[in-house]
């Protein structure tokens, strides 16, 4: 307990208690101090600019600042000399007087310019940040048919703009934190003040503050530092690149975490079913949306059970199938020299290989891989007698099913889980599958994400929230928020279709 206390104390000191060094009257001393701190870095630029006859020096880092801004907002006013007061001279938005040289260095690294004047004990910090934003494009792994087609980019300010634009609410709160001892990555926590549970916000802040590492790489590092259980194949944080998905989750009372330099938002807390909801469900008609969602949840089951069921059926209980089908299966399988387990694993691994290489290859070569995979492996491997046709069908179906889920992380979890299940099926038949499914479902029952049960609203059962879990009820029936993030306000819609009632009354 005490040790922990001291540890935290020391860590805190490390981060905030930067040694302070006040500037002196001598211009050269100040400038050389800063140059020493950043030495040797060739992109630190120095330019002498005098003000009212007194010597002055402008310092900036070339790679972080915008040349045009410096020229227009700093150099031009200085040379024209409109005002007597230095503070009123510069036309930059950000302007601050500072005394501490260490803070000056930090500001320099953020893309500010420093202006020192001989004989003055303090110096000016002037904003001239450069920002290079790539074009906004639709996130490649979260395409939708209908709905907005923009995605987050690598610039945090821009991402916040995208969220604020969709939700012009005074209750949207953004809290900054700088995490990573070396990288000092800017991390933003977003939540709705009047909806999100204060306990949840506190918990998120607590876990973020505890991160003490030199480097913070956005989705992966934050995820593993914050997750409840890292020894689990299931992702406990929803990762999305879509502003609309982020906003709708914020409206549920969840918290989004975004980091500078990364186009993803991490959303907590989540449930298993959140991974199977897509923005598309809400843009299509509710019957169609429900149908598609059912298909998606079915794919969850197919993706990790089908190979196991196939192995168990073929090697333990062929009698469960109609007789002629059994004969046909056996006829095809008897040519293959391996047991079904090896056969399936062999093909599954080949598929994983193809998938992984498909990501790395440029799209033009990717087509070649498709041909090699589809034709050479799919057809030739069966003709050679290494794999049977039914196995190919099973593996192909599993592959398709595993990509239906609109979250890359969950798709990975599902693809990974089928291997242990296949082993149990090969050892015990259906009983092994029962066991494997039991272990997975027990694990899911035990899992919690920031205090929210992972399987909510299924376990613990809450029928009210079922409206938006397996099915997607018409939006006007979803008048209450989902209960799992424990929002402060439950009502999210009242009677939007009251016009209809009024019409009926008139008749």
């Amino acid at each position, binding site marked *: 307990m005490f040790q922990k206390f001291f540890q935290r104390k020391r860590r805190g000191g490390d981060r905030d208690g930067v040694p302070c060094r006040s500037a002196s009257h001598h211009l050269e001393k100040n400038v050389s101090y800063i140059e020493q701190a950043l030495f040797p870095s060739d992109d630190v630029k120095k330019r002498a600019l005098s003000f009212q006859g007194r010597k002055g020096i402008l310092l900036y880092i070339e790679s972080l600042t915008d040349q045009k801004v410096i020229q227009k907002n700093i150099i031009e006013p200085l040379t024209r000399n409109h005002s007597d007061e230095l503070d009123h001279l510069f036309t930059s938005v950000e302007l601050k007087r500072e005394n501490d040289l260490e803070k000056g260095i930090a500001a320099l690294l953020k893309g500010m310019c420093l202006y020192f004047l001989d004989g003055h004990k303090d110096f000016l910090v002037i904003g001239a940040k450069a920002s290079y934003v790539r074009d906004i494009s639709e996130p490649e792994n979260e395409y939708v048919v209908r709905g907005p087609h923009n995605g987050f980019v690598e610039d945090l300010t821009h991402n916040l703009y995208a969220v604020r634009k969709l939700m012009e609410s005074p209750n949207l709160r953004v809290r900054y934190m700088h995490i990573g001892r070396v990288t000092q990555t800017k991390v933003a926590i977003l939540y709705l003040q009047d909806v999100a549970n204060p306990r949840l916000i506190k918990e998120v802040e607590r876990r973020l503050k505890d991160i003490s590492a030199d480097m913070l790489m956005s989705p992966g590092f934050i995820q593993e530092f914050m997750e409840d259980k890292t020894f689990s194949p299931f992702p406990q944080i929803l990762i999305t690149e879509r502003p609309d998905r982020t906003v709708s989750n914020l409206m549920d009372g969840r918290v989004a975490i975004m980091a500078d330099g990364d186009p993803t938002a991490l959303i907590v807390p989540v449930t298993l079913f959140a991974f199977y909801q897509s923005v598309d469900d809400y843009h299509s008609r509710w019957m169609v949306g429900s149908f598609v969602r059912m298909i998606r949840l079915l794919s969850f089951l197919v993706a990790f059970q089908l190979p196991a069921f196939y192995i168990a059926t073929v090697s*333990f*209980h062929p*009698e*469960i*199938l*109609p*007789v002629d*089908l059994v004969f046909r299966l056996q006829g095809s399988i008897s040519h293959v020299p391996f047991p079904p387990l090896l056969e399936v694993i062999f093909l599954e691994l080949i598929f994983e290989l193809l998938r992984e290489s498909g990501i790395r290859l440029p799209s033009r070569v990717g087509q070649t891989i498709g041909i090699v995979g589809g034709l050479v492996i799919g057809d030739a491997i069966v003709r050679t007698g290494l794999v049977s046709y039914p196995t190919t069908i099973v593996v192909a179906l599993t592959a398709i099913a595993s990509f239906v889920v609109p979250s890359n992380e969950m798709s990975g979890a599902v693809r990974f889980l089928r291997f242990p299940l296949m082993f*149990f099926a090969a050892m*015990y*038949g*259906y*009983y*092994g*599958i*029962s*066991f494997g*499914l*039991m*272990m997975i*479902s*027990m*694990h899911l*029952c*035990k899992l919690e994400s920031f205090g929210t*049960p992972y*399987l909510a609203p*299924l*376990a*613990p*059962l809450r029928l009210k929230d079922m409206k938006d879990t397996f099915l997607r009820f018409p939006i006007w029936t979803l008048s209450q928020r989902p209960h799992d993030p424990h929002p402060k306000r439950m009502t999210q819609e009242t009677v939007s279709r009251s016009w209809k009632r009024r019409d009926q009354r008139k008749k």
Partner: protein
Amino acid sequence: MTSEKSSISPVQMALFIIQTQIGVGILSLPSKVHMIAKGGGWISVLISGIVVQVLIFIMWALMKRFPNSTVYEISSQIFGNFLGKVVNFAYTGYFITVGVFVMVSFSDVLNRWMLPKTPRWAVLVLMVVAGIYLARGNIRMMARYYVLTSFLILLLILLVTYGFVDVDFTLMFPIQEAGWGNIVKASKDTFTAMYGFEMLLLIYPFVEGKSRGKLKAAFFANLFVTLSYTFTVFICLIAFNPEQLRLISEPVLYLIRRYQLYMVHRPDLIFINIWATTIIVTAASYYYAAATGLASLFGSRNHSKWVPYAVLCCFVVSLIPQTSSGMVKLSKFVDIAAYVFLHGLPLMLLVLSYLLKKKERGTA
């Protein structure tokens, strides 16, 4: 903090009891009761359901006097430290024995129906691993899982209902063929399939709400189990003729095996696997009970550390009875033990608590 984390709702308690009650007994129940009660077998099930209701009431009356203690704590409060430990030891032994009974019967069915060549230890290893994983969690996690898997019970009942496709109602008449005496006598056999309601003795202090609501939940649980058992026995009695019922040991499985569900030619295999889940859950309840007993014997508050020991005990003991006569002996022993621990001891504790005027002090 711990009390908040380990409390469950009355509905969860009801499902906890239902899941523990529905166990290995049901598969062979119809032929067992038919042997004695003939066509009136389903009435025997109802009778034993009523008996269980009475027992639940006794247990509830006892627990109501000690709303914050499990049966282990109650016995040491009434009998004193030493004698209480002896009683607790006996209770732990009882729970381990029932756990063994569940495991042995389960592996027996599995060996005969699905995995003829798999040795018993191999079948039980999976059960043990799943049981440990489940029983180690706190009671709320367990309850969550029990609620989740109770959907499977509905599925099982649905599969049994399908048996209606080919029945002959005349087979059950005359109902009193064996005489009312035999019908009552057969309810004794049904009682074996009803074990599990004793979980009330252990989970009662963790349930939120008023004692009346808890009693209702326990009653409802038993009502559900009794009715679904009656339903199953009833269908089996009208689906098979007496000669068949005498020959087959698991009529429920044969009932499901009789028909084909489109592609599935052996629905009984599916039934067994769903049923396996409820059996593993039943066993996990007993592991939990035994582990709590061990924890109280060694004066520790945390049961999860003792789960592996309790399960290991069950596992080793369950490998002993290899012959069918050994199994019969085991089931006889369990029956006798049940009389002591389900009828005798709770009643005795209740009477003693009234006589000695012992009651939990300072109840919140």
